């Protein structure tokens, strides 16, 4: 049962929109993003930090939103896949995922894109092994990863040529 005393007021910036909401202390940031804000691109898989499907950016750093409480996001800046997509920053990555069939059921895809984008932002020429290593925190149960690594490698090479 939820005690009304166990809720808190938060002001959270999600994809450049400021939300003031009352949240339960026990509510995860992932559930807050999905159920309260209604942004369902952030997926909830294992809820203990293993599968990576709930990855979002908090103050510019990737985090597991199932392992952050909504109340801890008070005063922080969150970017979800919706906001990152809208920025246009990952258009090439999305296209490459499409071309390479790097998404099947799509459950892992938003977080896979966010994680891959993080790698490509920090490292110019990651090789396949490095790509696999960096994406190792994101489970995909359909593709066998080959196509995902292909897509990320393709974008790494394309961006390197610009």
């Amino acid at each position, binding site marked *: 049962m939820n005690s009304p005393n166990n809720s808190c007021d938060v002001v959270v910036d999600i994809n450049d929109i400021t939300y003031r909401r009352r949240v339960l202390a026990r509510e995860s940031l992932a559930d807050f993003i999905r159920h309260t804000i209604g942004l369902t691109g952030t997926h909830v898989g294992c809820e*203990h*930090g293993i599968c990576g499907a709930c*990855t979002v950016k908090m103050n510019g*750093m990737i985090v597991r939103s199932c*392992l952050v409480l909504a109340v801890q996001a008070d005063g922080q800046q969150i970017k979800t896949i919706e906001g990152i997509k809208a920025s246009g920053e990952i258009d090439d990555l999305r296209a490459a995922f499409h071309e390479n069939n790097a998404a099947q059921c799509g459950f892992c895809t938003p977080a896979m894109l966010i994680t891959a984008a993080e790698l490509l932002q920090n490292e110019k020429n990651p090789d396949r092994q490095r790509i696999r290593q960096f994406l190792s925190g994101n489970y995909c149960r359909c593709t066998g990863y080959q196509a995902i690594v292909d897509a990320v490698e393709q974008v790494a090479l394309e961006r390197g040529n610009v």
Partner: protein
Amino acid sequence: MLLHRIQERGRAPGENFVKPVDFAYKKARSIDHALRLLKENVDDAALLSGGQSLLPILNMRLATPALLIDISHLEVLRGIERQGKFIRIGGATRHVELQRSPVITHHLPLISRAVDHIAHAAIRNRGTLGGNLALADPASELPACCVALDAKIELTSEAGVRQVEAREFFIDVYETAMKADEILTAVTIPTTTSNAYFSFREFVRRQGDFAIVGIAVHAEVVDGRFETLAPAFFGVSKKPVLAVRSLIPILGERFSPERIDEVVKSLQNEIEIFDSLHASAGFKRHLVKHFFAESLKEIHEFSEQ
């Protein structure tokens, strides 16, 4: 700190999702404030630092605290600082900060190497050293490094500050010498000498997973002889284990493959090895012996260069 209160809890009908029980949340304004809250709620509170160990435990309802006291934002608990012959690391220092710190790279290369093996970037961006040690997963990397490096754990309560040797700190699975009214405020690690060498290895099913077996070794080699040798194994037992007795034949001696073989044989008697979900004790025993022999060989080769 928390896990002595962790309880196995049956799931009520309809309770078939992974959400923590209802709890209150308080953001501590200072260490004193956190300590007061902790004392007032001593039987029923948990400290929240990075949350990367605590929140999975809460989500799975292995622990059911009534209050979370958030200390992760307290700047005074963060930072990496050289103090003479020691490096002092604040309890709420995040793994990513350890990974990027030139002080750690230069003075504590073993920690540097270990951090790369801790989970994944998204976890390292939140997880903290203090939380890692206080929650004391026996398969975790940094507890073993602290044991190998002979670190001291600084515990603060309203009664004052005490230092506990890392080698005394870990007691059992998720259990440490921390008392319920204490905060892990810092870790102090001796800086390495010019004779120091390290080795770090672990066996995992997936990059970033908890280790099935791992080893963190700190050694000092003088004139080709092992003057100090501290191999800490993790993932094998209920806590990180330092091998001591078995090392006697090689301490103060030159590297010799025959002597190492002798040590490797007695290691399995000294270290208690448990089965786990992914590996039998027999397989782990094999890894322990293999990693130990490889690590010593690596250290010997480095020291000859």
